[in-house]
């Protein structure tokens, strides 16, 4: 089974975000980046499928030069090779624009399965995998927690709201977007890190893929959210703050 895993590098979860001078995105200098969480689960699912059924795992990512360490991390965990779409203007493209880039890189590989995380931790649109399936003309299912290979394709477990699930049968090739939590993530081993250095990373530029990049959904401005409530922050050392909070809960909010 040949599996392509589309991954994204995103700012670290705890990163202090500042709005850039143009007010259109965040200030990227000085930010720490990491592998998007649900993409890590997509990679894990791919590696486990390969271990069970054999085949190849190819990681695919679009982004500027800084995505290098994230690619190496995926290779160190066990992916066989990588394709890097070198793209400095990822943020200026919308979900369709990014999916067009990925689709152009996936097509010549003719994989049996394409996996990606269900959404990115930065933009949180949750659309890339679904659009990618449409552009490739493949069936898809989203929010997947478990994948079982069958004679004709796959049976997958799909998460619904409020603790409900559904299984979906679909033929391969197909695209799945993976929900976090379905598997336990592995760490890269020292041997894996060493091996990753010799694995193939093929770089293709966004320009070479020649896809339409003009966005339909244009991000015009970013701003700090307005508070929905005025939060009373209780000052002092932990003991003072805790005592003040209990007073408030008892006599002001009357919930204790």
């Amino acid at each position, binding site marked *: 089974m040949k599996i392509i895993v589309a991954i994204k590098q995103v700012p670290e*979860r*705890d990163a*202090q*975000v500042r709005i850039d001078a143009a007010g259109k995105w965040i200030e990227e200098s000085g930010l720490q980046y990491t592998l998007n969480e649900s993409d890590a689960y997509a990679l894990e699912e791919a590696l486990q499928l390969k271990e069970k059924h054999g085949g190849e795992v190819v990681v695919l990512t679009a982004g500027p030069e800084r995505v290098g360490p994230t690619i190496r991390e995926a290779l160190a965990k066990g992916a066989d090779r990588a394709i890097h779409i070198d793209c400095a203007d990822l943020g200026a493209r919308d*979900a*369709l624009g990014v999916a067009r880039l990925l689709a152009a890189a996936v097509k010549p590989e003719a994989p049996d399965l394409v996996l990606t995380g269900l959404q990115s*931790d930065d933009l*949180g649109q*949750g*659309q890339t995998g*679904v*659009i990618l399936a*449409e552009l490739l003309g493949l*069936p*898809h299912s*989203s*929010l997947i927690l478990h994948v079982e290979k069958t004679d004709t394709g796959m049976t997958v477990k799909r*998460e*619904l*709201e*409020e*603790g*409900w*699930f*559904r*299984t*979906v*049968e*679909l*033929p391969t090739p197909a695209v799945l977007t993976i929900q*976090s*939590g379905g598997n336990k993530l592995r760490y890269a081993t020292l041997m894996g890190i060493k091996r990753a250095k010799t694995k193939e990373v093929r770089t293709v530029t966004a320009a070479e893929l020649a896809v339409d990049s*003009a*966005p*339909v*959904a*244009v*991000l*015009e*401005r*970013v*701003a*700090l*959210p307005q*508070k*929905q*409530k005025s*939060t*009373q*922050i*209780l000052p002092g050392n*932990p003991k003072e703050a*805790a*005592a003040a*909070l*209990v007073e408030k*809960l008892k006599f002001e*909010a009357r*919930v*204790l």
Partner: protein
Amino acid sequence: MSGIWVVVEERDGRASRISWEAVAAGQKLAALTGLAVSAVVIGAQTEALATEVAAKALGKVVRVEHPLLAAYTADGFTLALQQFIEAEKPDYVLFPHTYQVRDYAPKLAARLGQVLIGDVTGFAEGPVFVRQLMQGRLNGSYRHSGNGPCFVSVQAGAFRADEAQVGEAAAITVFSPTIDPAQIRTKPSERFRGAAQTVDLGSAQMIVGVGRGIKDPANIPIAQELATALGAELGASRPICDNGWLPMERQIGSSGQTISPKLYLAVGISGAIQHLVGIKGSQCVVAINKDPDAPIFEVADYGIVGDLMEVVPALTEAVKAAKQ
């Protein structure tokens, strides 16, 4: 162009609550743009649903109906709505932002050369549509450019279902799409529950929620001690359950339980959208977090900024003292 169309989602034979929120959003967008607002219901048997929806102040209600739409599939719903949209040429198509909509609306939009502006929390003159970025730390304003319909989905709780205005009974018509069985490539099962739910957070009056800030499963007991002192249930955000630090049945949020306690104490929870939609019904929210910019503070009544490893044990002692 034919104005604003709201796609209503069915739940157990009736319009789901978030669908009424989408109808309310559609009516507000109509007021903003001066366009008419109508609704679509979709399925194999939609008569009762259409009648229910037609009671709202809507121009028309269309039943997009076909036997192959009995069970939801992305292929079926995309084909049916694609044909409807090509015939009707709407200016806007509004959806409730549900797991089902997330599964097909991006595909439908892409097929028509469009992009869904998803999980929208509000809109303003322009119109510009606001959605959250960076796990709720920032808001982004999006504008639709070019020709063709603008696809938008609205976040659960962003608009009020009870603000969906009632009107004169809207005219109901039927639209019959052409679908070939071979075009539906996926086969869904009936929905089922996970492990039996033995923890009912939904009716708990006090809940302590644990998030990533707890850092290590060995630290869970300090939150448990606070919960015990309060007589509260222990809940968690998704990552804690994903890691197996607490069982899945204690998960609070869109994929877990929805809570409405008198007091919700969020410990080390940053406040991702998926968690916040699950705690909206809480009467009083307290947040303890080391990051003063964490989105949880936007919805909290009271907050303590600090190291939870110090604050939580101090709070446990203060609660015990107050109860004596």
